[in-house]
């Protein structure tokens, strides 16, 4: 790579960050060539065995095909019943503890002084050369400072201002859908709507919004981090491209402010107007990490809840009837969708000291994975947990947003988006029929859909 050309091509003001990623990529490749790094093995899909045929110690819920083949429920039920705090010593992601019951997950999530979120919150690890820093993977007090700088963008007050815009963009998407003709709900609705929302929040060029989707899928879908199918080289290239685009956006906003234009309510404007983060661009790994966090956080999650709700109502048709008869159930149903789907299956921690939990001793330094997807189906905490019940009592008491200081920052935005979606859907369509088995994502982290064919009927 010729650095002089790169500088000339991109303009000196925006070179540092993409360059740093590219340099990191070169170093990573060199180390791999020299055999210092081993290539993370590609996951090859095989049939997930019936859990009852396995010895308890051999159960490995990091297998990314558990969700893809939709076999996860029986696996986690067995762990919850027989070994709720379970140690798997040989996974491809290294040894790890699984926490599978609601109450134990609440305990781990609450006690950040016992369980650290650093350096990653997914089961695997990213290469050192791409160790972006994000506040979800920081402990207090640094976490608190960074989170407070950005949480205003999704604070309810800001959202109230945005509700009209969210609704009109939702209407546009829904009005373009065909009637009585099969189409992919994931692509046409879930991905499209979340991409539009992200572009709005970030004030990102609207016509390039698919890039946000691509980066998010890359950042959340690495083989070494979550058992996905993306390779590390692609991840480096994607992050360099993302760095380039966001550096440009940052500089453009800076120039506008310098020219006396009023600041917006988008994320970058908020970062620039806060003392704690106004120079964030000078810390490339933190800058990139926090943007990646907000993109992934606002993308896979809502996307898969948008698909999951449709699927749930098809699997539980009486609930669909109940909903059509009483649309005032939408807000409660939104919480139930988020529980039933649990779009992010886990969060991981590292024990900071020895901790006794449910009869097991977790040693200092051990990796601990809280399986929200399991806790949300825990019969001990939730009545008939496998049932989708739109007027469920206590529907808000689900684990999908996490608890404690890392609780999902965008929870109110997610609820708002889903509420508006269902209000607008019920106003337009008499039925949304899932006409084929949906395809599930390969991951142990993102619990979602890559394809779901549906057919709409007029009201």
């Amino acid at each position: 790579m010729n650095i002089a050309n790169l500088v000339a091509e991109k303009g000196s003001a925006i070179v540092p960050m993409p360059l740093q990623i590219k340099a990191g990529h070169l170093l990573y490749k060199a180390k791999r060539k020299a055999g210092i790094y081993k290539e993370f093995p590609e996951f090859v899909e095989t049939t997930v065995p019936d859990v009852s045929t396995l010895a308890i110690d051999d159960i490995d819920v990091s297998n990314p095909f558990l969700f893809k083949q939709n076999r996860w429920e029986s696996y986690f039920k067995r762990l919850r019943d027989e070994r709720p705090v379970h140690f798997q010593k040989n996974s491809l992601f290294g040894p790890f503890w699984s926490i599978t019951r609601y109450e134990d997950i609440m305990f781990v999530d609450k006690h950040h002084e016992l369980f650290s979120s650093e350096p990653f919150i997914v089961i695997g690890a990213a290469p050192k050369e791409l160790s972006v820093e994000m506040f979800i993977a920081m402990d207090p007090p640094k976490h608190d400072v960074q989170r407070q700088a950005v949480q205003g963008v999704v604070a309810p007050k800001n959202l109230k201002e945005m509700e009209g815009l969210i609704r009109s963009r939702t209407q546009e998407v829904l009005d373009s859908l065909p009637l009585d003709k099969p189409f992919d709900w994931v692509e046409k609705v879930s991905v499209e709507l979340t991409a539009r929302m992200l572009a709005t929040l970030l004030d990102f060029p609207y016509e390039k919004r698919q890039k946000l989707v691509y980066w998010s899928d890359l950042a959340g879908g690495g083989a070494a981090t979550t058992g996905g199918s993306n390779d590390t080289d692609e991840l480096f290239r994607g992050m360099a491209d993302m760095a380039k685009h966001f550096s440009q956006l940052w500089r453009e906003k800076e120039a506008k402010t310098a020219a006396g234009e009023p600041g917006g309510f988008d994320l970058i404007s908020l970062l620039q107007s806060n003392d704690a983060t106004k120079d964030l661009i000078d810390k490339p790994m933190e800058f990139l990490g926090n943007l990646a966090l907000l993109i992934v956080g606002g993308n896979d999650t809502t996307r898969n809840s948008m698909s999951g709700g449709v699927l749930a109502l098809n699997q539980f048709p009486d609930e669909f009837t109940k909903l059509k008869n009483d649309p005032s159930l939408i807000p409660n149903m939104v919480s139930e969708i988020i529980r039933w789907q649990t779009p992010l299956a886990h969060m991981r921690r590292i024990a900071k000291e020895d901790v006794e939990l449910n009869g097991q001793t977790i040693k200092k330094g051990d990796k601990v994975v809280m399986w929200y997807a399991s806790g949300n189906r825990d019969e001990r905490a939730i009545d008939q947990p496998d049932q989708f019940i739109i007027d469920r009592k206590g529907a808000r008491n689900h684990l999908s947003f996490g608890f404690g200081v890392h609780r999902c920052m965008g929870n109110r935005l997610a609820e708002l988006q889903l509420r508006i979606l269902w209000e607008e859907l019920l106003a337009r369509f008499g039925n949304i029929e899932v006409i084929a088995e949906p395809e599930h994502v390969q991951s142990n982290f993102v619990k979602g859909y890559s394809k779901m064919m549906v057919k709409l009927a007029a009201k």
Partner: protein
Amino acid sequence: MASITFIEHDGTEHAVEIEPGKSLMQTAIDNGVPGIDADCGGECACGTCHVIVEGKWISTTGSASEDELQMLDLTPERDDNSRLACQINTSEAMDGMVARLPEFQM
């Protein structure tokens, strides 16, 4: 009867009877006071039962613990007298207390 009054953000008042020993959060929920979500069910782990205790009553309820402050930091409507209602144990001594609800729960 000993009572506590919740005042919603729009000014609507709800006077409810004190059942000593019950948390302020549970008292609100059991009496159908709107605006308390209580997503974590009283574990001091979500911040969605935020109330602002009026005036001198903060000395009766006591101020927020360190864990509680950490959760309260997540809400932009935080006030000096902010508390999580699940962390307040009600007693007869709170007769006449006023707790204001924020516009939004986080």
